[in-house]
């Protein structure tokens, strides 16, 4: 059978404007509205064929929603729409200053368990990471608006670095709680 072939991109699918700063409330409202029509449960008493179509459409909508909901995924997707592939993004050169900062942050995380008040230190660090991420999101938006695609790509790579760091911090936190 034909797989769902939506000609629209994810922004068009949800009828939201193609910009980084989209309204998450609006996005999720549209998402629920679409699933209300397409979800396989709506076809539970119908034929197997209909259910298969519904599963594929519903999965497509889920994929689109997951992508747009997350700032980093959304940024990467916008680059993809602009013709920059994921491989091209990860090949982007990053300035040495950023990498130095990353190394320092990483060292901080590794030594945190030995600190007097590791919980508070970790909390500070995590909010620092969150703030840095916000800054790079702005950097991304400005670069994309000015059509400087390699600038937008390098902002994405920095966001990826910070995402990874944040995950590590979370793991350390989970370890502290145990």
């Amino acid at each position: 059978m034909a797989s769902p072939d939506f000609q629209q991109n994810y922004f068009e699918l949800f009828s939201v404007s193609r910009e980084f700063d989209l309204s998450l409330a609006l996005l999720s409202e549209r998402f629920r509205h679409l699933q209300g029509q397409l979800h396989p449960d709506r076809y539970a008493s119908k034929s197997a064929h209909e259910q298969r179509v519904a599963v594929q459409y519903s999965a497509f909508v889920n994929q689109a929603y997951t992508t747009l909901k997350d700032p980093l995924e959304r940024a990467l997707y916008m680059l993809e729409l602009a013709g920059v592939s994921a491989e091209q993004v990860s090949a982007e050169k990053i300035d040495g200053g950023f990498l130095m900062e990353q190394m320092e942050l990483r060292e901080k995380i590794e030594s945190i368990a030995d600190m007097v008040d590791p919980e508070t230190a970790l909390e500070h660090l995590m909010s620092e990471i969150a703030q840095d991420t916000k800054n790079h999101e702005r950097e991304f938006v400005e670069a994309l608006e000015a059509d400087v695609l390699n600038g937008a790509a390098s902002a994405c790579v920095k966001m990826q670095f910070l995402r990874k760091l944040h995950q590590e911090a979370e793991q350390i936190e989970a370890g502290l709680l145990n």
Partner: protein
Amino acid sequence: MALLHIAEPGQSAITHEQKLAVGIDLGTTNSLVATVSKDGASALPDDRGEASLASVVSYADPAKVVVGREALAAASEHPTDTLSSVKRFMGRGYADARDEAERSQYKLTNEDAGMVSFATSSGVVSPVQASAEILKTLRLRAQAALGGSVDGAVITVPAYFDEAQRQATKDAATVAGIPVLRLLNEPTAAAVAYGLESKGEGLTAVYDLGGGTFDISILHLHRDVFEVRATGGDTALGGDDFDNLIGDWILHELGSPKLKAGEHRTLVSLARAAKEALSDCAEVVIPLQALQLDTSELVLTQNRFDEMIKPLVKRTIQACRRAVRDAGLSPVDIENVVLVGGSTRVPLVRAAVEDYFQRKPLLGIDPDQVVAIGAAIQADILVGNRPEGELLLLDVIPLSLGIETMGGLVEKIVNRNTTIPVSRAQEFTTYKDGQTALAVHIVQGERELVSDSRSLARFELRGIPPMVAGAARILVSFQVDADGLLSVSAREETTGVQSSIVVKPSFGLSDEQIGSMLQASYSHAEEDKEARVLAELCVAAKQLLEGLAVALAADGDELLDSQEREALDAQMLRVEEQLTTGDAAVLRAVSDQLGRDSEAFAARRMDKSIRTALTGVTLDDVSEEIGE
């Protein structure tokens, strides 16, 4: 019913008659069946007026399998023939289950390296068969109460059940002769029961501590859509463990005497009684005469009991913490906390939940029945008894899915807590020159190494033309349906060579095994099977034709060109001709063909409906609706 009936809410294309739908809570300790009547959803009692069926099956008498209260009464007398807590063995291999079995004194068999089975006086019994006996008892109860055969059931499973455990549950339903509409996660079912009751909105945490499993789910109710935001838990942690701790303590206090098999059961029931009493009292006297030892009684205080179970309760709170984080929230964001499962009556459990969420839990519905009631409501929706289909559940997968890559590492393809259904694809390549086959090993879990993950299935993609290493482009696609069950396909992109598998977990049952179990359970054939098959096919074919006619009248001219229309009409005629011939195989073939022929049309109608769904709603309208 050929096509997606994209009817306006409230107007279904074909009028349905009321169907008999039930919700079944297949629990570790107790099971229930519930249904929706005009007075609302309620659990169906047995002839003694009891809603709970003890999840205990006795195989002591090879001539008669006994389920429930009577089986429980025989537990001490026939310890190895009386199976309780079989849910803990569902979908498990021998190695997983050994510790569990040592406690419960069962004789395990491990004949075919598949799912573990029990050796009883009536022969080898698998957990699936024992579960099927429980389900069958509930099915008969429902049929007696409702006066007809059950058209469909929603069966609940712990949200944290993995692929093998879900498949085993579905297999048990098949063996019991129950058509499964959906497997529904227990916490989601509970939230449905509360959601419809209170018409509440907002974020709800469901803390479900049953006899053998623990689940935590964070849900968001927004108008008529329930979105599961995150889920977590432990499939081997529950009230039974509390009982075992008390049992261990009693033995320790008595200087670790050696017990006979039957006495172990007695010990566990004494422990359970003590636990239950401690929900209301500060201390309890445990009578030990039944064990025929020197000591006649012991006193257990609530403080001592709290100390014993504290590490287990702490584990549940850690799971809560992780689920709240996965949902991108903090505990204060949660507006409602729902308690499910008998073990939430334990004071320490309540206190810990209250302390973590900083909120008093909701208690309106009986925690033992809330899951079955939610399942009944969902079943009623799924069979189409509520034409407006009021409530939609968007559930998630509990554990990440991935495949094995070089070096025994796991490449995750679908992350845990992803909303289902989901399709994901990832490209892989060959690592040797001239490699013509690729083994795909599917695993489940959060760990990095294959050896730490649960192996679900393996299959091979063969017939890749010889190429240099890295030149083949192999797309591996995962699809998880609304039940949380997985199918995987692999395709070499440059040649189109394809292979796929519906994942039957390593511990699952083969179709032949299910077939022979079915055979056994239908040894006294209730009705002429062939005639029934033909009758069902005729009904389905008529519905297909009818639905297609309605759809064609509405959209046929717009969405099909004349050639496509003619082809469909011709195939419809073929089906119509076969309705009266009485040949089931031919009728099935032409109906299936019509179904496939009409899929493109169905897809176009779906596209059209999406466009319609989103046009005519302006940005302002929606912003207003959501109160921005």
